[in-house]
């Protein structure tokens, strides 16, 4: 148990290989706790990934420290799984000077160079347009790391999706594309935007190997991601992994999603990735209810500290308005 507890406290840049189950669970719990805290403290203009935590935790815990991540507007899970400090994240969301981007980014574009979260674009498709260049740097400068690019099913309908995948395929760029197919694109259901059901079938045509995985099963995601990461790292060419999941909250917290079909929502609620993982671990005797309770306490206290830190942090000086525009 001690070894396991140690594991759960390491950050996501470490492989969860040795005993991933607990790590993955606690990572998901932390993401959930962080995101559910936001509306509680009045932050509603924020896109949460509630219900999609398995995708973030499963993929990010399959990465090494030298790998680089690009992500989008629904990024909190990726950042937390990577080991980001929820306090500095929350400070950023609140526009405080202690945030990862000094409050200039706000909720939507948090990047964290020290953790290899190189760019976050809230232009849907922005991460797809930047990813090949990041991978080109890895290729040209002979760096071992690969590039992981998170984006949604909506981003897949932007033209730049096509351009990004085609270039990555042709130039053999080491990119792991992760399409979080959560069935919604803001206020539009995925079915209203395409005839196909799986984005992975689109990727295949560029000559990129692809796979769809149950995005609500953290084990399945993690296993698939480990294989995918390995392929990209070894073959130095792109791989495409679609995590099939569901956006459980509105597009933003302020969105009551009255337009979402209640049955569809209920069906997916039954597949909640955290509940599933808890039940599985208990069932298989890998974790005790007591250890889970300890995790819950730890997570709660982390989030409380984060709220305290962010809340008491100052806003940036007005002079910051025009700094860091040019290098």
């Amino acid at each position, binding site marked *: 148990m001690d070894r396991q507890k140690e594991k759960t406290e390491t950050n996501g840049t470490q492989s969860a290989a040795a005993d991933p189950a607990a790590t993955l669970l606690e990572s998901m719990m932390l993401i959930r706790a962080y995101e559910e805290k936001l509306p509680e403290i009045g932050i509603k*203009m924020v896109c949460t990934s509630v219900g999609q935590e398995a995708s973030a935790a499963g993929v990010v815990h399959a990465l090494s420290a030298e790998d680089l991540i690009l992500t989008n507007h629904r990024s909190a899970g990726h950042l937390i799984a990577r080991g980001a400090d929820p306090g500095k994240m929350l400070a950023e969301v609140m*526009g*405080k000077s202690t945030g990862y981007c000094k*409050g*200039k*980014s*706000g*909720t*939507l*574009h948090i990047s964290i160079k020290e953790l290899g979260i190189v760019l976050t*674009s*809230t*232009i*849907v*498709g*922005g991460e797809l347009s930047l990813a090949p260049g990041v991978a080109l740097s890895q290729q040209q400068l002979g760096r071992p790391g690969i590039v992981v690019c998170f984006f949604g099913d*909506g*981003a897949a*309908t*932007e*033209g730049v999706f096509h351009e990004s995948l085609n270039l990555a395929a042709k130039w053999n760029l080491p990119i792991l594309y992760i399409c979080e197919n959560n069935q919604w*694109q*803001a*206020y*539009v259901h995925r079915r*209203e*935007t*395409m005839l196909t059901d799986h984005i992975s079938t689109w990727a295949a045509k560029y000559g990129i190997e692809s796979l769809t995985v149950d995005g609500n099963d953290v084990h399945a995601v993690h296993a698939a991601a480990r294989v995918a990461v390995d392929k990209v790292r070894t073959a130095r060419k792109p791989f495409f992994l679609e995590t099939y999941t569901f956006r459980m909250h509105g597009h933003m917290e302020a969105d009551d999603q009255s*337009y979402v079909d209640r049955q569809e929502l209920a069906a997916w609620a039954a597949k909640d990735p955290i509940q599933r993982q808890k039940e599985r671990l208990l069932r298989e005797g890998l974790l005790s209810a007591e250890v889970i309770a300890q995790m819950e306490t730890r997570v709660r206290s982390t989030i409380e500290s984060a709220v305290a830190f962010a809340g008491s942090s100052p*806003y*940036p000086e*007005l002079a*910051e*308005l*025009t700094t860091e*525009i040019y290098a």
Partner: protein
Amino acid sequence: MPNVTVQEAISQALTEEMRRDPRVLMFGEGVATKRYDLVKEFGAQRVRNTPLAEGIIAGTAAGAAATGLRPVVDLLFSPFLCFAMEEIVNSAGKLRYISGGQFSFPMVVMALTGAGWGVGAQHNQNNEAWFVHSPGLKVVMPSTAADFRGLLKAAIRDDNPVVFFSDIALAFESGEVPAGGEIVPIGKAAVRRDGTDVTLISYAKTVHACIKAADRLAEQNISAHVIDLRTLKPLDEETILNAARKTGRVIVVHEASRMCGVGAEVASIVAEKAFSALKAPVIRLTGPDAPAPASFPLEQAFVPQPDAIVEAAVRLVNYGETSAGDQEQRVSLATSL
């Protein structure tokens, strides 16, 4: 006159124009979800959700406009127009001319713009000047509920591509709107205050800052004339020049960044065509040449405020009392946000 919000005014304009003309249709990301009332009244064919792809939304509008429809598309936030520049500028703006007048492009591109929601630089950039600079387009950016309604109706009836910007900060503001179907003509500025000492020229949210500034200036016995441009292309040169000649002092105010902004255009027109009437430098009060910050206090500071306008106006009115070079420096100070 009924009091309605800007959002309601926009809805009214859309509904009325779709009723009037069956060729009008609307589409965009979430349009059918967010304007479900329109779907109910006009059916799913005329009010459509689209895939998440601004380029093809605008391109589809242009193709449809050239062949008999009158599309209105919603591209959400102004920075997303970056994905549709080709279709708006190269196709809709130029293909009439290129075709020797064979085709026309009656279409409206809508987008939210400006500070107010703390959404940061990739959702907030006032890029209206790009479209003013490009041939074949019209650009509209109202400041009152009545103008939102009247100008959107005019835009839908116009036979040319119109880019229609809605300042985010105004979405929930309300104002009196005439009950009938009044059209506000594209290309006509409005005089919001009549004054004699200094002219404040603006559009969108900063019109309201100018009006506030005018009130405060009045307390100091300075009479400010306030112009709301409303349409940025074509510009209402006559109203601009009349006002400039009347007061001899001009301040242009907007939130967009300064270099090559609409303020530059207005100031240049004044410096060229009202030169002999000028009693002081023409100055611009604008947002900084910076990406828009998300942080609340920074975002507030991004927007030109009534205080700064008052200060600049006072300096302009006092201009000429001491040595000129010195004065210019002091006047300019006020403009470097």
